[in-house]
């Protein structure tokens, strides 16, 4: 048995403790960055030994509460692999960004970021329902504190709303977990999958789990906490929130709702798909109407996460594989968008679109990155977003052509609001003196260093999707809901 996953999960906690003990702010920043880089390096060790099989790999299992059949049980498969790597990649970037801009209580801030990383990795790796629930709930605390302490004007309201909304959503999940134990006698996810729960139990338990995941994702109409939290959160908080935290919801659907409740999943698939489409269109239209750049990106998340849900509930291999890949894509592109918004905000202290215009002339490097990221988010072929969205739409078309048609409308709207934002910011005449070259410095090397890895991955995923999909597919194909469908044609892009 290897300890790789435990080291991966708890390395950030060790980092957090060291950061809190470190004497100076400069040292704290350096240590926190090193801790996230070390975690990233450890997570890369998953790749060399990776086998393209459906099973859990690098499994660790120890008795945690032996009297109650509760285990410390970690494992990673094709569904979680890229989410783990996404987390470990975005954290050093978020910490690097914070190191430049956070001035208040640096130690606590960085320690909370590191605790956040442990919580998120734990969610993606836990295979025991109780352990999962512990990480899931715990992830609320550092994020709420980050928003509430280091956010902008309305931060306390946003933090409390975020905390209570998601906490209330997952309360019933705890009852469902207990009910599953009552019926199957185990909290072990893999054992529960083969337990074959009675349909009546599946229906209720699915609803309880789905509520928690729908709020986290967020699925329309449970999204109201998200714009508040995003707009108020500090930039690095938004990056983590949009980049990783939202994926916990969609990951939850994939890891728990689909395998444990196949019957209920099939029953509710249409309803949830409709909600996803409403979310796609609603999020896109609201994004279009935003005057604040950060709100625009926040609402675009609602739309994009709707796409992921649509793919999952197509309940076939393309749809789900595309959804897994799109989770990563959205994490990268929205993370980058929030970083760009943050970089601009730190210079100008405003996020209103009307304050900008013609930035291409004054800050060309920034504008270039903004363009690439917007294109990735809009799904331009050759970049990552296209692969994910196209695969999802193929899957959706196979299960319900009407949903696919409506989904495509969302892509058009996404291109519209993103280009609208780009035009407002970078194009047109450079009129506002605050935006002149001498007043507005372009991106420095540190900032380019934060964006470059993300942009490189846009191209990597866009041009060589097979490298990523081939690791995702076996685990997706093994899902019971997928196997019960007629085998679909596997679609892959060859570079």
């Amino acid at each position: 048995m290897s300890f790789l996953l435990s080291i991966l999960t708890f390395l950030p906690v060790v980092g957090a403790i060291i950061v809190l003990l470190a004497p100076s702010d400069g040292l704290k920043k350096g240590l926190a960055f090193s801790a996230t880089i070390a975690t990233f390096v450890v997570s890369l060790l998953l790749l060399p030994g990776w086998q393209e099989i459906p099973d859990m790999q690098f499994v660790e299992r120890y008795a945690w509460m032996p009297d109650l059949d509760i285990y410390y049980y970690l494992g990673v498969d094709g569904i979680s692999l890229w989410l783990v790597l996404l987390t470990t990649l975005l954290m050093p970037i978020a910490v690097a960004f914070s190191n430049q801009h956070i001035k208040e209580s640096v130690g606590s801030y960085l320690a909370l970021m590191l605790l956040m990383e442990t919580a998120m990795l734990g969610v993606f790796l836990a295979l025991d329902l109780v352990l999962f629930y512990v990480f899931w709930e715990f992830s609320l605390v550092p994020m709420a504190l980050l928003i509430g302490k280091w956010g902008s004007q309305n931060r306390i309201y946003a933090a409390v709303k975020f905390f209570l909304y998601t906490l209330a959503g997952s309360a019933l999940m705890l009852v469902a977990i207990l009910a599953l134990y009552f019926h199957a006698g185990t909290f072990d996810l893999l054992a529960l999958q083969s337990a074959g729960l009675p349909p009546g139990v599946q229906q209720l338990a699915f609803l309880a789990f789905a509520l928690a995941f729908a709020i986290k994702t967020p699925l329309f109409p449970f999204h109201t906490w998200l714009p508040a939290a995003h707009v108020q959160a500090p930039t690095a908080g938004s990056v983590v929130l949009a980049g990783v935290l939202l994926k916990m919801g969609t990951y939850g659907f994939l890891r728990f709702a689909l395998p444990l409740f196949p019957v209920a999943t099939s029953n509710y698939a249409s309803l949830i798909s409709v909600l996803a489409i409403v979310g796609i269109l609603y999020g896109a239209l609201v994004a279009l109407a935003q005057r604040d750049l950060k709100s625009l990106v926040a609402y675009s998340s609602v739309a994009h996460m709707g796409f992921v849900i649509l793919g999952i509930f197509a309940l076939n291999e393309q749809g789900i594989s595309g959804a897994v890949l799109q989770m990563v894509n959205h994490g990268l592109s929205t993370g980058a968008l929030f970083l760009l918004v943050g970089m601009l905000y730190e210079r100008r202290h405003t996020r209103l679109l009307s304050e900008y215009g013609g930035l291409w002339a004054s800050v060309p490097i920034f504008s270039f990155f903004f363009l690439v990221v917007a294109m990735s988010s809009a799904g331009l072929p050759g970049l990552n977003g296209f692969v994910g969205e196209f695969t999802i739409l193929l899957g959706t078309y196979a299960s319900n052509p009407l949903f696919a048609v409506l989904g495509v409308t969302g892509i058009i709207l996404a291109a519209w609001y993103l280009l609208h934002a780009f035009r407002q910011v970078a194009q047109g005449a450079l009129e506002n003196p605050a935006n002149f070259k001498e007043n507005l410095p372009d991106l420095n090397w540190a900032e380019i260093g934060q964006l470059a890895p993300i942009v490189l991955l846009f191209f990597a995923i866009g041009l060589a999707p097979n490298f990523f999909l081939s690791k995702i597919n076996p685990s997706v194909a093994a899902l019971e809901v997928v196997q019960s469908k007629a085998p679909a044609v596997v679609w892959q892009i060859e570079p």
Partner: protein
Amino acid sequence: MDTSLLFDNAIVLLPEIVLAVGVMVLMMVDIGLMAEPENRTQRRKDAKAPREQNSAALLSGLTVVILLLSVGAALFIWSRPPAEYLGGAVSDGFALSARLIVLLAGIFGVLLSRNYLPAIERQSGAYYSLLILAVIGMMLMGTATNLIVLFIALEIFSLALYILSGFYRESARSIEAAMKYFLLGAFASAFFVYGSALLYGAGGSANYVRIHETLSSGGGNPSLVLPGIALLLVGFGFKVSLVPFHMWTPDVYQGAPTPVTAFMSVGTKAAAFAGFFRVMMTALPSLYDQWAVLLAVLAALTMTVGNLTALRQSSVKRMLAYSSVAHAGNILIALVAGTAAASSAALFYLFAYAFMNIGAFAVIVALERTGEGDVAQSRFDGIAERFPALAAAMAVFMLSLSGMPPLAGFFGKFLVFKAGVEAGWSWLVVIGVLNSAISAYYYLRVVVAMYFSDAESEPARNTGAGLNFSVTVAAVAVIVIGLQPGLWTGLLRGLGI
């Protein structure tokens, strides 16, 4: 009666005997100190330290020693097979765990009381004697296997607590609390004794097992049993603060000196629940179908009313009082479930509750100004800046009380809810988790005030070795139990009744 019987198995009561002897020693030492001539204590360099200061330090130290001796006695009889004493008391794992929780509350109570009130300093002999007496009564509650012993235990600790809660004589609120507690408590005791009498009439004995034998074999007078249970419920409901018998709780919690509140909030709850569990599950299991539904309704009502009312409190002591009402509802779910696993889950819950609740009150003691007796929510504003460790500890207690993993409070709730679902009370557990979510709001409000609000002009903080020690130990315990709950469930396994 053959007098040799009197000493058979008397070891069952060893922890209480240690305390009873201790109280007498304490009182004699107190008298000795009072008689001591002035000049002998004048050797102390600090001229400002009055004579009471020194004797108070001595007496509180002695009290801690006595309580620790009793802990030792409890652990000693734990290593021996369970035994019963004269059909009135038993030394099984359940009784011993309940005793340890009470002793824990007692030790914390003493540590928090140092330097808290001039009145306590002046009359520390009386104060600590009463505290030990209360501990004796509380310990007997879970130990008793006989309605008469149970009633005596109830009266011992209740009377001691009435006096303790009025110990802050300069405060009208403290006097009011004591008076209210006494009047309502006496009333509840009357109900309790009535119920016991009816059960005695129905079962033909005061011993739980005999009552059970009579009732389950179809004997006994059914028209006496159900009224008996109902009256007994009123008595217990008062002591553990179930809605609608909870009205005294906020006033007494707020008015009593804070160390007393800390001690009694945990001690009374553990003791009364231990007695409650034992009566219901050993004397009346044959009527489970009748009382379980009644208790389920009370539990739902208690959780909901407690949490909703706590939302609207501005005094932190009152907030914690309503929170303790809500927690009583949670623990009651375990009794409704009525299984052995459920009662050991309740023990886990009470252990967790002891640390997190006493910890929270200890933080209040730290922030109270001399003679104030209460702390408004606004006192917590921005204290994270000035006292980061204290604020972090309070955050741990608040999050644990709200049931946030991985802290002790979460696993308490988890185990109780699990027992509830397994016994088929899913609807009650659903109400429980929804209430948990509601409760997060008012606990979180304290955390928000500490970390996000601007500091009050001059936040003060009381220090003291006992106080700091209590806060630290409680916080560490809450975290350690949360990270390694398996150790504790292992210890408590099979201790249910």
